[in-house]
């Protein structure tokens, strides 16, 4: 165990002197055997953890959305070939090999789920949050999406249709939320700050400035 996660507030696992739980011990034992047998390079584990903890996360997707808001040509490219358009900003690879961007409008709201496991567009959103992988979300997103949105404090007009994308194969979906009103004068960087992770899954909307 050569790395420790960086500190985050309010989490049990930051108590450096707390006793190790059963899962800590079991995982540590498995890691020891796999490393001792030479199947796993400890430096690879460190690099993987560093990548998904600090390098790849929803700020990537927010940059894609902000670019789509300001650049009509890029938006058109996203519609035509999202994998290539997103790759042009430097994001791609594992769990984002085949991307489709779906755009919210005043008349249609998109929501993404994986009812069978936890498929999620890693290169643009990072690893999925716990709720995305949970039974409540996976069961209800396809049958009661308005109820799910209510759990997130989001209410859409009844006239807005809801389109749910169940990621049952290796295609990954990124929601392009609507650009909020009052953002005409903002640049791409400021716009990206309005784009939260949930708005790119469809369980939220972009923030107003």
């Amino acid at each position, binding site marked *: 165990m050569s790395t*420790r996660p960086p500190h*985050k507030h309010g*989490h*049990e*696992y930051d108590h450096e002197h707390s006793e190790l*739980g059963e*899962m*800590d011990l079991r995982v540590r*034992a*498995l890691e020891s*055997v*796999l490393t*001792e*047998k*030479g*199947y*796993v390079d*400890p*430096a*690879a*584990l*460190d*690099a*993987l*953890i560093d*990548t998904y*903890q600090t390098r790849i996360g929803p700020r990537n997707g927010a940059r894609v959305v902000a670019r789509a808001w300001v650049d009509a040509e890029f938006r058109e490219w996203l519609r035509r070939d999202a994998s290539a358009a997103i790759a042009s900003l430097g994001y791609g*690879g*594992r*769990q*984002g*090999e*085949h991307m489709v961007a779906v755009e919210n409008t005043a008349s249609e709201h998109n929501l993404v789920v994986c*009812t*069978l*496991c936890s498929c999620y567009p890693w290169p643009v959103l990072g*690893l999925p*949050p*716990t709720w995305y992988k*949970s*039974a*409540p979300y996976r*069961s209800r997103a*396809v*049958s*009661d*999406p308005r109820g799910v949105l209510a759990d997130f404090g989001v209410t859409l007009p*009844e006239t807005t*249709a*809801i*389109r*749910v*994308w*169940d990621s*049952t*194969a*290796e*295609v990954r979906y990124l929601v392009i939320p609507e650009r909020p009103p009052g953002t005409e004068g903002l640049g791409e960087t400021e716009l990206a700050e309005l784009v939260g992770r*949930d708005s790119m899954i469809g*369980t939220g909307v972009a923030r107003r400035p």
Partner: protein
Amino acid sequence: MSYTTHADLGGQPGHGPVRPEPEGELFHAAWELRVLALTLAMGATGSWNIDMSRAARETLPDYAASSYYEIWFEALQRLVEERGLASAAEIASGHMRTSPRPVARVLRGADVAAVLARGSPTERSATSPARFAQGARVRMRCDVPRHHTRLPAYVRGRAGVIGRLHGTHVFADANALGLGEQPQWLYNVVFDEAELWPGRAPQGLKVSVDAWEPYLEVA
């Protein structure tokens, strides 16, 4: 041989409300990160494919009672044991007792960025024309296969419309069984809520799944 998945949750009642969490909150214990990294590193050895790992996870007897990273851990341990890479006794003790088995490759720290950037694309060149065109009406097969599949129960037997063609992709069902990639046309199939949830108050909802051609019949 029977096959029971515990992961097919779409439309199931009784799971309660979703509990949102802030954007930065992904892990709830340090071991979860280690399990993630171990799973990716062991996946890179080529000892199994992603569909085999999904099959190993969804058939765990304790699936419903386990957290997601507990599921990943149990499935990883199961795959390692089944492939003879390490025994249950070795895993429990944390010490090697028998010599390692050869694996196709070992992911080195220096190669992680390049390997992740490359990913594992599943699209293959089409060798036959697509059977269905955009807008075609199709019905999902209703037989329940006795192996891993990506056709969720809530759409089985239901009629929908082809929304998009995604090209030809590695067929999960065959890949999970170790029968090779057997690439098939993959479609986005769109369903009306009345077809999926008859009798319920409408929400203005359409739902789509991505489905390989063998899952589809002419409606």
